[in-house]
């Protein structure tokens, strides 16, 4: 998708080109001016968009006094890692990081499996109530957690999940976007492929495992990236379900730091950086799948 846009070339017919060669030359000059203008606008916008990231890094590497000084300065007065050392000395950061990692890993695996299975059924199997169930699954997109949080909290407590990872893992696994993407992708697998294997006596489960699944690798990549990011960054429900500090994920830990009587924003930015870096790395490594996944969710 990224490649096609740039390589598209203009192909005016030859006759037009020769009779209007002077015209073309002025157009080429105008194009160069346009390109420069476009570049400058893009540069300005991107500097503004990148600034919050830059500022997070600067503050996390600055001495505390910089924050309270009234002087406007765009870089640290002195580079220091004190904020990181103090952060790790005061709080159990590795536990929070580990919690985020464990919960994200479980939700991602469970979410991919569950959504893939459902996507296959919605796309390729005919069964009573298929349309209605799919519609209901999609409709959960408009259901904010604030609507169900009280009841969900009671449920999780009743089931005995409160105070464990499961309180967050299980409610997060099935998602509207995940089902939608999986169905959309599997719809694109030609029916003939499945019919043929059916003739060879394969049941639905073998069809899924030996034909659908191997073709779903790009889909799985998209789902992994999108689910992992959403889970790693999730806040509203973990805020309610994870009250004990040994269960905190990084976003809840960040809130905990902000809630201290004198919140230290140099440490908060250090922890923000720690929380964001893995996602930036994942994003840069899988940008193609990430962008594809989002773009595909928009094609109806």
């Amino acid at each position, binding site marked *: 998708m990224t490649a096609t*846009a740039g390589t598209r070339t203009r192909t005016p017919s030859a006759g037009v080109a020769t009779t209007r060669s002077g015209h073309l030359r002025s157009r080429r000059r105008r194009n160069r001016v346009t390109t420069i203008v476009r570049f400058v606008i893009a540069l300005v916008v991107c500097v503004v968009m990148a600034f919050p*990231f830059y*500022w*997070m890094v600067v503050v996390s590497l600055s001495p505390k006094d910089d924050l309270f000084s009234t002087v406007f300065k765009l870089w640290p007065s002195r580079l220091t890692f004190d904020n990181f050392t103090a952060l790790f000395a005061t709080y159990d950061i590795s536990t929070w990081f580990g919690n985020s990692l464990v919960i994200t890993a479980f939700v991602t695996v469970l979410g991919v499996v569950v959504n893939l*299975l459902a996507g296959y059924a919605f796309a390729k199997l005919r069964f009573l109530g298929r349309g209605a169930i799919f519609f*209901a699954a999609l409709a959960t997109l408009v259901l*904010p957690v604030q609507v*169900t949080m009280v009841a969900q909290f009671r449920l999780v407590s009743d089931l005995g999940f409160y105070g464990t990872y499961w309180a967050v893992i299980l409610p997060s696994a099935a998602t509207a976007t995940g089902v939608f993407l999986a169905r959309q992708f599997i719809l694109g697998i030609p029916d003939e492929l499945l019919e043929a294997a059916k003739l060879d006596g394969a049941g639905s489960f073998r069809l899924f495992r030996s034909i659908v699944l191997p073709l779903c690798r790009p889909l799985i990549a998209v789902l992994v990236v999108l689910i992992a990011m959403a889970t790693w960054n999730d806040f509203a429900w973990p805020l309610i379900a994870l009250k004990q500090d040994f269960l905190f994920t990084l976003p809840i830990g*960040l809130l905990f730091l902000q809630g201290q009587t004198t919140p230290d924003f140099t440490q908060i930015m250090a922890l923000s950086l720690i929380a964001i870096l893995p996602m930036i790395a994942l*994003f840069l490594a899988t940008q193609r799948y990430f962008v594809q996944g989002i773009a595909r969710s928009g094609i109806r």
Partner: protein
Amino acid sequence: MTGVTAGSAGAVAAATRRPPAPRGSSRRRARLRETLTGYAFVGPNLVLLGLFLLYPLVLAAVLSFSRYTGFGSPEWIGIGNYADLLSDAVFWRALINTTVFTVATLTLSLGLGLGLAVLLNKALPGRAVFRTIVYAPMVVSGVASGLIGVLMFDENTGVVDKALIAAGLPPIPWQSNGGAAMVAVILMTVWGRTGFNMVIYLAGLQGISEELYEAAELEGASAWQRFRSITVPLLGPSTFFLLIMNVIYSFQVFDLVFVLTGGGPGNATTMLTTYAYANAFTTRAQGYAAAIGMVLLVLMLGFAAVQWRLNRGRDVTG
């Protein structure tokens, strides 16, 4: 893995064979089997959705007609909570705030997303880097962007006010002025949302033929005219999709507001979601919180239904 690949290759070879026509009771039996298999595949998803979304939703609906502190058992009070909502100034404030926030973020991030998509669609030096920078805020959590927002907009330590003072301009009271606080929330949201809108618009632009632009250019149409009469109308479906998604996201805003302003000053940035949360877990009026949640849900379902109808009508006429 190799065995699996070989199997699917065999399946491709056999794909030309025609399936026999199924008949009579065997067909009925086959259909029953497919239904059972269908439910087996959807089952895990259904159980999770049913248990953790549908069941709590029903419970919340019941709770919204009750008085409940979170301890003991709920007491049925009929439409009491909903009647209270009508005369609750904070609730109306939250509704207005949510609407203002939604309209502002929608307009700004859609406009920016479209502009950047057009800007970065055709070849441009450094285009890949520019795109990556616009996408990057998407991966930042609401909590982290709220905290970064505090550092940008704090009226004592924030970099924006320091820059304003250094430039000889008056600082903006981001925390003590309600309007300014709302602007800060909107700006941080637009920062995180624009990349998403740009992705969808870029995908939409791939579907517009270059020949249309060439023809219009030969007819002497200016760049703005081409944008107005080719790009904007042909991106209609993308805009429609983004309209729905942005309204859904904005109406559900929580993390960023919770961290950046906490709803303040006063209730200047209180949203329906943060007001519901405060009622449920701070003042422990959980039945009342459930009622706010139901209003939120009904508003969103109503919006989705209207959009659905409009879209269908457009498909028929267009």
